């Protein structure tokens, strides 16, 4: 081997080695970005899954409750006046406090504390007349103090929690009367203006309904369109034109579809505003081209020999398509559908335009009830000033990611099943 050849060979090996290194660096970079992203979200968001309670004692005094009956019925308990009882439960934490300063103590718990006092008695009617310990939802600020997210060293006038409240908090904490428990209400509560009460139930259900509506509209339409275009339509200028436009549609910014939904679904058809029904249809406009393209590609990938076999057996075009081609293309079509739905799942802009950005403090039971969606909820909370919402944003992202992962998993399982059957 002469030196020229040797050099050439060496160069080729070096080039390959360099190329592999570029690849490794690229993957390393991507993974480290992912790690930073995940760390950010988890470190900020994990505390949202903890809820802070303040434990105090409540005296269900019949006189203060304004209950006259000897053995009160459920209705009596329901209609009793809990204001004083609840008020006393909080102010008893510091009996020496002058009355005009009471607000400072009351502010340490959620504004719904009166309802919590009521609920406990309704669940345990035998507490009537007794003094029992009660857990009250700590206010957003105390919650943040307890989680260590609240700087204590800034001047008092710049703080939402004043020195007196911090002092009470420290006392309670020392006594072990500040509890930290898993935050179930984050999953069961709808949105709220109060960070400590805000949950994702309404936006989660909104997302579920939107995705279902989106699937119900886009999947059949897209699959039928793909089958017709691929298996039946004549190949001419017109079908070429349609194909180009479907590809273009897949690249249209989502906000444009939002405008379309606003202009047609809401303005012309008068569908109910802010509902998953409208959101889902709008999203299905976006998902449609993605599914059509995927379905066509997987129909194309079915070997022509299968079609020929069926046709030669005397199957009609329709039978060939429905008995053989379509079932064989299903795994590909399904994964395309999941990709489309995953895009729709994270879509915010079109939903904002059709009004799913409204503050919804009820949990939607049907697709025609007003709702938010998870990405819109993230957007709404990220605009809120309260410190408590910062962790909620990250927690909501985590839920969205978990939702995505679950969907992909389901898709993989379905896909696997189909492929097993047909291979």
């Amino acid at each position, binding site marked *: 081997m002469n030196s020229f050849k040797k050099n050439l060979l060496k160069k080729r090996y070096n080039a390959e080695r360099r190329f592999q290194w570029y690849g490794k660096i690229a993957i390393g970079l991507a993974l480290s970005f992912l790690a930073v992203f995940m760390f950010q979200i988890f470190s900020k968001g994990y505390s949202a899954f903890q809820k802070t309670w303040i434990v105090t004692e409540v005296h269900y005094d019949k006189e203060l409750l304004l209950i006259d009956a000897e053995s009160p019925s459920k209705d009596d308990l329901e209609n009793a006046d809990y204001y004083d009882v609840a008020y006393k439960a909080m102010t008893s934490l510091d009996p020496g406090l002058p009355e005009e300063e009471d607000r400072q103590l009351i502010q340490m718990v959620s504004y719904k504390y009166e309802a919590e006092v009521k609920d406990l008695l309704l669940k345990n009617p035998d507490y009537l007349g007794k003094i029992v310990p009660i857990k009250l939802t700590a206010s957003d600020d105390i919650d943040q103090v307890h989680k260590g997210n609240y700087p204590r060293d800034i001047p008092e006038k710049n703080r939402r929690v004043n020195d007196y409240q911090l002092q009470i908090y420290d006392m309670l904490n020392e006594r072990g009367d500040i509890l930290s428990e898993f935050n179930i209400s984050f999953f069961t509560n709808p949105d709220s203006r109060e960070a400590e009460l805000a949950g994702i139930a309404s936006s989660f259900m909104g997302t579920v309904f939107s995705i279902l509506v989106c699937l119900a509209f886009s999947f059949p339409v897209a699959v039928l369109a793909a089958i017709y275009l691929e298996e039946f339509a*004549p*190949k001419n200028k017109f079908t070429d034109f349609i194909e180009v436009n479907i590809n273009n549609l897949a690249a249209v910014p989502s906000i444009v579809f939002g405008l379309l939904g606003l202009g047609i679904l809401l303005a012309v058809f008068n569908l109910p505003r802010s509902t998953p029904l409208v959101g889902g249809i709008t999203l299905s406009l976006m998902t449609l081209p993605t599914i059509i393209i995927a379905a066509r590609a997987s129909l194309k990938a079915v*070997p022509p*020999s*299968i*079609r*020929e*076999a*069926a*046709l*030669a*057996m*005397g*199957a*009609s075009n329709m*039978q060939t398509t429905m*008995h*053989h081609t379509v079932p*064989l293309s299903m795994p590909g079509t399904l994964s395309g559908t999941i990709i489309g739905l995953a895009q729709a799942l994270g879509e915010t802009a079109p939903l904002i335009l059709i009004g799913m950005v409204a503050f919804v403090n009820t949990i939607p039971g049907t697709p025609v009830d007003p709702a938010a969606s998870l990405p819109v909820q993230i957007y709404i909370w990220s605009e809120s000033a309260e410190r408590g919402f910062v962790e909620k944003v990250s927690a909501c992202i985590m839920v969205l990611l978990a939702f995505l992962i679950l969907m992909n998993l389901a898709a993989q399982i379905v896909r696997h099943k189909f492929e097993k059957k*047909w*291979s």
Partner: protein
Amino acid sequence: MSKIKAENVNVYYGSKQALFDVSIDIAEKEVTALIGPSGCGKSTFLRCLNRMNDVIDICRVEGSIKMDNLELNSRKLDVVRLRENVGMVFQKPNPFPKTIYENVAYGPTIHGIAQSKEEMDQIVETSLKKAALWNEVKDRLDEIGTGLSGGQQQRLCIARAISVSPEVILMDEPCSALDPIATAQIEELIDDLKKEVTIVIVTHSMSQAARVSQKTGFFHLGKLIEFGSTDKIFKNPDKQQTQDYITGRFG
């Protein structure tokens, strides 16, 4: 007796002509072999006989092809009915990715041949027996057809083709993807089948044509050069071109 009579068949792919004035008489219950070098148009001709060329948009067929006095090259012809009567076996085994049973039962199902489950079972069994595959698969009819070996797959395709009791079976190089043992099995099968069915087989192997066929047609560049009894074509052809091809001087 003539089963299929083709007269002056011309086939065009777009502006390119693939077959020139092919006229041929295919006799009933005989094996007719079509031989010739690649691209000579023998497969194109075969696909005219069950209208498989319809699938190709740019393909145009002219001339007359009559099967029992029924004009095949007519717009009015019901292609589905034709293909029920004219089965086809392809070069590459192409069983459906379904069970062995479903593969054979597919034709009878779509053509409504079996009235009951028992009748269908019977059709599947007879077809597989005729295709000499029954003994190998009778215990695993619910396994996927594509899991069989190449030779078994091709016999499954033959079983599928005969399940609707066609009058004619077209075979497009059915053994080109198979080993010699599987080829021998298929050839035996062809010998058996010709008692009931008219067979037209396209093959690249001249020895195969000599072994299985009674009539042979030699195609070259889209023209039928010579057609006659296999004996005559192989021993004493009229045309020099045929002689050259048979003896391996070109092709």
